């Protein structure tokens, strides 16, 4: 179950992981995009971590809402409105009385799909979110499941986002947004929140 404390811990861990892997995320984006995913995500998550450290939060909803606004306004690439929409959806769901982690992640995935219109198999972060969601429902989310979902984007042809302009040339590369989303969920496990 998410609490104010473990939600902040989760998102802080995510910010640290993104900062550590900044160059790698940009390298992935260099292959099939414009090479800024690491810079975008580290700018956004650093602003998020700062915002989360600045106030006292009463509810998980407030934590997620604050995180959403930082990501939305600071990332600067497609992943800004996408992660922003995910966290806004999650914040809304967290306000419901009888919610749980699975429903919150479901709301996040819905937010991304509503915003970006990507379907599973389009080689985007959606592929990771939906696989993670499925595993959560079955109570089987592990690092290995996440790794597999991220790697599974490599053979796909991109249908959404900048990589889609490359057509067949996008095949054979891991999707950068899938990788960063993989980090988000690995931090859920690393933070002991599952």
């Amino acid at each position: 179950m998410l609490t104010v404390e473990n939600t902040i811990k989760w998102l802080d861990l995510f910010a640290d992981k993104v900062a550590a892997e900044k160059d790698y995320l940009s390298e992935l984006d260099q292959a099939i995009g414009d090479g800024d995913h690491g810079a975008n995500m580290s700018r956004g998550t650093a602003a998020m971590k700062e915002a989360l450290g600045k106030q006292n939060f009463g509810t998980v909803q407030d934590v997620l809402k604050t995180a959403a606004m930082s990501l939305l306004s600071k990332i600067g690439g497609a992943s800004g409105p996408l992660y922003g929409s995910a966290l806004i959806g999650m914040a809304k769901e967290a306000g419901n009385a009888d919610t749980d982690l699975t429903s919150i992640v479901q709301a996040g995935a819905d937010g991304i799909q509503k915003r970006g219109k990507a379907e599973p198999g389009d080689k985007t972060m959606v592929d990771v979110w939906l696989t993670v969601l499925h595993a959560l429902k079955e109570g089987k989310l592990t690092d290995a499941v996440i790794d597999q979902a991220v790697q599974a984007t490599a053979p796909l042809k991109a249908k959404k986002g900048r990589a889609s302009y490359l057509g067949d040339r996008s095949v054979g590369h891991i999707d950068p947004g899938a990788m960063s989303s993989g980090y988000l969920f690995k931090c859920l496990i690393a933070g002991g929140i599952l």
Partner: protein
Amino acid sequence: MTRKYGVLLVSHVSKIVDGLSLLLNEVARDVSITTAGGTDDDGIGSSFDKIQAAVNANKAEEILAFYDLGSSKMNLEMVKEVSEKPITIFDTAFIESAYTASALLQAGVSIDEVKKQLEPLKIK
């Protein structure tokens, strides 16, 4: 007299919308045209805050919005959802459609007619 409908240009690069608004201002003197180009720190990308500021700065009551690539559209949609001013987003060829809309609005053509003329320019 300022027209009821204004034009909003959103691009990943500030110079793109700066240049495009020069082109449009020449044919649409009385149309309020505002722009949001690049990220907050003027890097390449799109910015929710800049788009919101450009909506607020636009003198028109309603906005016709044109954009370059997908992430500009996603930020535009997020601004649209919280904006009090009605915004219509066009999935049309950026330069051609912004030019068409501006020129027609200047000529006092009805909004329905403007939308009709933009339809064949839909490319995304």
